[in-house]
């Protein structure tokens, strides 16, 4: 019964989304015009039809205020419907109802739903039964619909607030907003249709099985479940960017106001996709079966591609807001980011590519997802093609300028995204063409991405200190003197200290040092070399502004991430041995003592938990408990590594089977500087949050005045 309720709510989302699409679309205006023509007679009709061709100009001279009683007149047609907030809120509530119904079916273990029977079991812990609602295809699609509905409501609130303020260009603004809301309505409709056609989570079977098949033990992991909301909220942010971009293209309003509308969305989508990537990386790191923190897996690539485009968009949007240049490039990125995010979801849901797919039970078809993708984005790109060459750049900028630096960086980022996309789909194309099976792994990505990353990181060092519009090379040289010297010292030190090192990680470390020193020296210069304002030095810190702080934090985070990544790849130490109780294992500066294995009962599994005591300089630091878990429902084992994050590196311990000689196989890895990778990721996420949180904070404090 509850599931039917959810099913009905999903159908209503479809209807409501479609009516939002119609209600805010230009079609309604045409209908309104025809109605007006019929009711006001031929004279008005002629005037209206004369106006129809000139589009946005027609209402500009008229009174822009909203008059509910002027129904049917052309002025009202350009004003937004007064119930603008109502429809998005209705969709959001319906989405919540549908999601709650699905979660409820999982909580009470309603096995007449095949989705519940396929992935859940009565013995699965409650937390994972709730989480299981997100990880099947149908559940994930429903989550995506809900996330988009949420973004839709927040966007409506954002523009509603703005449109309630008196504004001279209210008519263009209103048309632009209405179009964006209409496109969001279309996106929600398409997603709801795709959910219903491809993987309807609310279907019932006549005969319910006695119990479910149980959750795949590999998915019974908190991080796996947390990744999904982050990913789909990020995609919902990209959907709003897409809608705003297409609407901006339609009314040819890609300008400063457009960039300001986009600002929280670009930052939010970037942040959430980054969060999903970080969660995913830490999860594959803590799973013994995979071991490395980046696998170049289809699922990982399909997160990384939209994130790279979102990063490019963060920079282009800033240029657009500041100087109103790079209009069509920003629009192109805005469409492409969502397109590739959507395509990534398609790639992971259709088991086309992954050589070792996650699950047999959910390899349903994703045809509707692909068709929706083709229809939506071919229309968007067609519009882009028609409109972009009419958007003349108002201003030019010099070759040596911040605009140019940001532009080159964003082009490089999108090239990297393109290369990763090619690497991801190439095996599929080859299989179709001549039936050969190949795998594209880390070597391919390293050799192709490296030539792009090197100039990217080099420019990243000095782009933030470039001046807008026009700058001089010798001035840059003067400003970057300190950073250049410091990073040269770092490279020299590392290459002398580790003389046998191959050049690749050395380049990584050197570039990390370059970004780090240039960011810090710029920060230093801003804090201490600025003229004193007759106030305390603390004033200089305030003058930096949230944008600068967020950018510097993210850049430093990336530098730390790259340094940690290259160092841990080079100096990794691995020990595989058959250990007996009491045996001590030397790895890096640490000493591990194996204490034996105890059999324990978990919530729905039995676990063989090994105990290790970690020593450094013969002082005990911590106990580590790697496990082998046995899940009786599926009859499979998983191996959970245990990790110690020390100040000079991670110790990663995992255990395997009993070996012939009576010991137990133990794999210990010491990864120097690995905590830098996690610290860098966290720093980048903090950087993104600073930008969003200060905006929210200032908005609350200044009581509704946009703070930027």
């Amino acid at each position, binding site marked *: 019964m509850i599931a039917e309720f959810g099913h009905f709510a999903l159908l209503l989302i479809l209807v409501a989304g479609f009516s939002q699409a119609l209600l805010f679309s230009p079609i309604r205006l045409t209908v309104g015009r025809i109605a007006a023509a019929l009711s006001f007679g031929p004279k008005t009709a002629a005037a209206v039809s004369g106006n129809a061709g000139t589009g946005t100009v027609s209402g500009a001279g008229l009174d822009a205020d909203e008059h509910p009683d002027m129904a049917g007149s052309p002025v009202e047609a350009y004003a937004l419907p007064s119930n603008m907030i109502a429809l998005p809120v209705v969709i959001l509530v319906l989405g919540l109802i549908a999601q709650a119904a699905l979660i409820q079916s999982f909580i009470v273990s309603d096995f007449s739903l095949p989705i519940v029977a396929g992935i859940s079991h009565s013995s699965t812990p409650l937390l994972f039964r709730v989480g299981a609602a997100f990880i099947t295809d149908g559940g994930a699609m429903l989550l995506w619909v809900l996330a988009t509905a949420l973004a839709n409501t927040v966007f409506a609130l954002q523009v509603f607030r703005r449109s309630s303020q008196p504004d001279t260009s209210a008519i263009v603004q209103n048309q632009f907003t209405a179009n964006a809301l209409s496109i969001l309505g279309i996106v929600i409709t398409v997603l709801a249709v795709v959910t219903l056609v491809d993987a309807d989570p609310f279907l019932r079977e006549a005969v319910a099985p006695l119990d479910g098949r149980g959750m795949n033990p590999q998915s019974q992991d908190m991080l796996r479940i947390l990744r999904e909301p982050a990913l789909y909220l990020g995609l919902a942010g990209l959907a709003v960017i897409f809608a705003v971009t297409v609407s901006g293209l339609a009314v040819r309003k890609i300008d400063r106001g457009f960039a300001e509308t986009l600002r929280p969305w670009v930052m939010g989508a970037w942040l959430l996709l980054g969060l999903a990537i970080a969660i995913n990386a830490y999860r594959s790191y803590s799973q013994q079966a995979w071991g490395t923190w980046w696998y170049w897996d289809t699922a990982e690539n399909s997160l990384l591609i939209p994130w790279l485009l979102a990063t490019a968009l963060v920079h282009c949007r800033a240029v657009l807001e500041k100087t109103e240049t790079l209009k069509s490039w920003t629009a192109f990125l805005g469409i492409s980011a969502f397109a590739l995010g959507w395509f990534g979801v398609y790639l992971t849901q259709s088991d086309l590519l992954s050589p070792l797919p996650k699950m047999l039970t959910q390899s349903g078809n994703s045809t509707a997802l692909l068709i929706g993708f083709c229809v939506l984005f071919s229309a968007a790109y067609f519009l882009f093609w028609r409109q972009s060459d009419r958007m003349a750049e108002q201003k030019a900028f010099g070759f040596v300028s911040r605009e140019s630096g940001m532009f080159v960086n964003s082009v490089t980022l999108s090239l990297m995204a393109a*290369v990763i996309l090619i690497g991801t789909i190439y095996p599929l194309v080859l299989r179709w063409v001549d039936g050969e099976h190949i795998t594209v792994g880390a070597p391919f990505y390293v050799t192709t991405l490296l030539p792009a990353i090197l100039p990217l990181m080099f420019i990243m060092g000095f782009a933030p200190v470039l001046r807008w519009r026009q700058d001089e090379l010798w001035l840059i040289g003067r400003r970057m003197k300190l950073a250049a010297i410091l990073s040269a010292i770092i490279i020299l030190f590392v290459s002398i200290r580790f003389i046998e090192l191959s050049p690749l990680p050395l380049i990584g470390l050197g570039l990390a040092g370059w970004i780090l020193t240039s960011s810090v020296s710029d920060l230093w210069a801003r804090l201490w070399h600025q003229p004193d304002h007759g106030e305390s030095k603390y004033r200089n810190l305030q003058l930096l502004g949230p944008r600068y702080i967020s950018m510097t934090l993210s850049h430093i985070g990336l530098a730390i991430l790259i340094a940690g990544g290259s160092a841990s790849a080079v100096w990794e130490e691995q020990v595989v041995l058959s250990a007996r109780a009491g045996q001590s294992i030397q790895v890096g500066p640490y000493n591990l003592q194996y204490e034996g294995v105890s059999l324990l009962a978990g919530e729905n599994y039995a676990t063989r938990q090994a105990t290790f005591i970690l020593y450094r300089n013969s002082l005990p630091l911590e106990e580590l408990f790697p496990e082998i878990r046995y899940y009786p429902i599926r009859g499979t084992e998983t191996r959970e590594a245990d990790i110690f994050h020390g100040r000079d590196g991670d110790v990663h311990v995992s255990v395997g089977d009993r070996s012939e000689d009576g010991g137990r196989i133990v794999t210990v890895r010491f990864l120097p500087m690995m905590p830098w990778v996690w610290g860098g990721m966290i720093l980048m996420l903090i950087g993104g949050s600073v930008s969003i949180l200060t905006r929210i904070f200032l908005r609350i404090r200044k009581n509704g005045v946009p703070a930027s």
Partner: protein
Amino acid sequence: MSLSRAKARKRQRMYIIGAVMIAVAGAAALALTAFEDSVVFFFSPSEIVEKSPIDPDQRLRIGGLVEEGTVSKQQDGKTVNFVVTDMAESITVAYAGILPDLFREGQGVVAEGHMSPNGTFVASEVLAKHDENYMPPEVAESLKKSGHWEEIEAKNAEQMRN
């Protein structure tokens, strides 16, 4: 004045388009050359026997079923030997390390590594990141080629019922 400005703008756009074109061409060239030497091909045991001797430097993937009763630990305690078969030909695989969670006798497996001169396959990575009754598509295809697919399918179905 205005004309020269328009010209400058046009020229700037030309520069931008040119730069983008060069970058795209460079990326395409890089990707193609990288594909040539860093792509890993997948072979079934029959294909390996057909093509042998295979250059030991070439990285490749091998996939098939783990033959029952062939998994054995070596003297050093950490190297595992097992035989991968597509029911027509078999190849011995040696792997040092902990086998993945879902590695079972009689189940599908994919191993990445290289051929040693003495005809065994030295795996640097064994992949079995899949469901317990799931067959990697490459393995399924190679079994279909060797004509033993129905037999395995029936056996798996039998196991599922039990």
